[in-house]
């Protein structure tokens, strides 16, 4: 792992190198990555299409969108209600303004409880606030128990997808990691054996952990309940066995009542994995009650703002509707070609390209190019189960971005608009364009142009006649 060359933003990954464009070029060179992403994207697409044709996913989208918009509009009161009900059921609620505050609280808690081992189930919010690094810095062993996340932890990598983090690795790569971790050569590369091995190794951690940390898919204000959706069962063990359970959530992930929760709990797996149900949905209201033998003694809900609150009332408010299903990633031609790690942020794909610079700030070198890494095709908006107009948000995000590149472009477009708002200068410039092509063309094609137009001709020829000759 190498250190970052620029930027010290709070969201960007610590081992991200180079520019965004350089990372996409590197990703384009990897045929294994391309093959894995294609398989993943296509199998998701088929499953999702099945949901649309047989289970009525499309009809559910409008209601899901309205629910989430309503949630964001009423956010302060819903959070107050959630807090009050969690406390009434014996839980502790902490409102953290940012990741630093959240980490400080959780590390402090771990120290006070004398913890040595922390078992974690998948949580994008904890990636965002860099909780693992904070806990490890305080001398704790942190184990990701979601199979894909554990694999990545062993590989020293960051997730490439919100739902299926290790989607870019194949079984031989995984077997090698397991052998190294266990110090044994006899682990076979077939999927069943790999899963069986992981099961036993991670059970050791469930048994040892004093603290379990989970994310939250949605929180229900009316009863103070957090919902955790998963397929493997590790979140259930993380929230059942350790004495302390800490749940970390982005502040926008709250719904009003069980009617709304039921609808979203149906839509989420349909959009995320193309199934009508996830294997396990865990609904947790405070710590264990008197007389219960399993379950944590303490329940702590850490609600992170981290820049989200500031988006309410702005042109980006709809981005807060996101339920982190990952559908936009799977549907995006960019993500499907270069994968999630090229984005250099916990949140990749279209939603990541929109919110990362919003949470980091428009001039942050780590993320300001992200909204430009999109052809604005709109597949994300089509896929989004809560109807976020991601393609429009990307354009708005571009207008907000501030960098040397955007300032140069601003000057160029100013000149362009001066010429092209008057018919005479417009016709002159288009005629000159046609002339330029004629002059530089050979056999009906232009193969290179100078200056900024080089970026076009580095990849494509330009026909000097239309329709083009062969």
């Amino acid at each position: 792992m190498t250190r970052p060359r620029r930027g010290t933003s709070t969201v960007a990954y610590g081992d991200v190198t180079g520019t965004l464009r350089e990372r996409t070029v590197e990703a384009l060179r990897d045929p294994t990555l391309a093959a894995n992403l294609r398989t993943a994207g296509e199998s998701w697409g088929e499953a999702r299409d099945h949901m649309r044709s047989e289970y009525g996913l499309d009809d559910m989208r409008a209601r899901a969108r309205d629910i989430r918009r309503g949630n964001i509009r009423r956010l302060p009161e819903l959070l107050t209600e959630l807090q009050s009900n969690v406390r009434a059921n014996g839980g502790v609620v902490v409102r953290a303004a940012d990741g630093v505050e959240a980490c400080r609280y959780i590390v402090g808690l771990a120290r006070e409880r004398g913890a040595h081992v922390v078992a974690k189930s998948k949580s994008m919010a904890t990636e965002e606030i860099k909780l693992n690094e904070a806990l490890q810095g305080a001398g704790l062993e942190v184990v990701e128990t979601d199979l894909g996340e554990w694999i990545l932890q062993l590989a020293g990598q960051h997730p490439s997808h919100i739902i299926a983090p290790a989607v870019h690795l194949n079984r031989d790569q995984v077997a090698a990691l397991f052998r190294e971790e266990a110090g044994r050569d006899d682990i076979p590369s077939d999927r069943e054996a790999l899963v069986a091995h992981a099961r036993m190794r991670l059970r050791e951690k469930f048994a040892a952990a004093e603290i379990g940390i989970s994310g939250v898919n949605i929180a229900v204000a009316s009863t103070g309940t957090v919902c955790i959706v998963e397929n493997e069962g590790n979140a259930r063990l993380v929230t059942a066995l350790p004495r302390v359970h800490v749940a970390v959530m982005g502040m926008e992930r709250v719904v009003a009542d069980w009617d709304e929760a039921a609808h979203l709990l149906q839509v989420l797996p349909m959009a995320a994995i193309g199934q009508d149900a996830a294997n396990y949905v865990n609904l947790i209201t405070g710590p264990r009650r008197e007389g219960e033998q399993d379950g944590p003694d303490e329940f702590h809900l850490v609600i992170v703002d981290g820049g989200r609150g500031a988006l309410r009332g702005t042109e980006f408010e709809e981005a807060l509707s996101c339920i982190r299903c990952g559908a936009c990633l799977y549907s995006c031609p960019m993500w499907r070609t270069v994968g999630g790690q090229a984005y250099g942020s916990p949140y990749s794909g279209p939603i990541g390209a929109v919110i990362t610079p919003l949470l980091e700030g428009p001039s942050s070198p780590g993320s300001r190019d992200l909204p430009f890494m999109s052809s604005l095709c709109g597949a994300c908006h089509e896929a989004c189960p809560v109807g976020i107009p991601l393609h429009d948000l990307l354009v708005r995000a571009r207008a907000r971005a501030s960098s040397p590149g955007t300032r140069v472009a601003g000057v160029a477009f100013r000149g362009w608009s001066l010429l092209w708002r008057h018919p005479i200068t417009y016709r002159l410039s288009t005629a000159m364009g046609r002339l330029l092509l004629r002059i530089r063309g050979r056999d009906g094609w232009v193969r290179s142009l100078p200056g900024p137009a080089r970026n076009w001709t580095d990849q494509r020829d330009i026909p000097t006649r239309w329709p083009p000759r062969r």
Partner: protein
Amino acid sequence: MAAAPVTDRLLDQFVTALTRRKASCEVVARADAARAGARWIADRGVVRAVLADDPVIQGIGLPDALRAAGVDPIMWPTSLGRREQLGLEGPDDVCGVTAPALAVAERGTVVLEAAPGHGRAIDVASRHHLAVLPADRIVETLGEALARTYAPGRAAPSAVSLVSGPSRSSDIEKISTLGAHGALTEHVIIVL
């Protein structure tokens, strides 16, 4: 919790959905329920079962039927430590027996509620999962199940687990593999 007797349509819907979720089930008369459950457990080669201490499970006489089938029934709350519960020590081929409070027909989901007699992780810590479900606890939709579970005036349970089939992982090459952490099998005894 119990309401109207289950209709054939609802029962069919539930059985179909369970099969889709890769769980198995059998519909039995009450008098046959304990025998059916004990037989399924013994057929897995299991020698130890952890049972929720629940009126449904006691009521059909499952503990005795298990002993008769050569399976040691341990009632919740147990004296097993965490390592034994997880199968790291002692037999790792344990079956967890639960008594769902409700089931959702359209999704093939059983709803498990934590209680002093019903550990929240009995099924997921074990390798196998048997659920004993009175048929009149089947409702059609998730919305109905959640509305009942969190009905106003009812204390919210500390943990509710919506279980829809055995544990899966799709993380290795994006192809679904069974049994990453939770139970590898799920069988529902639907008691008429």
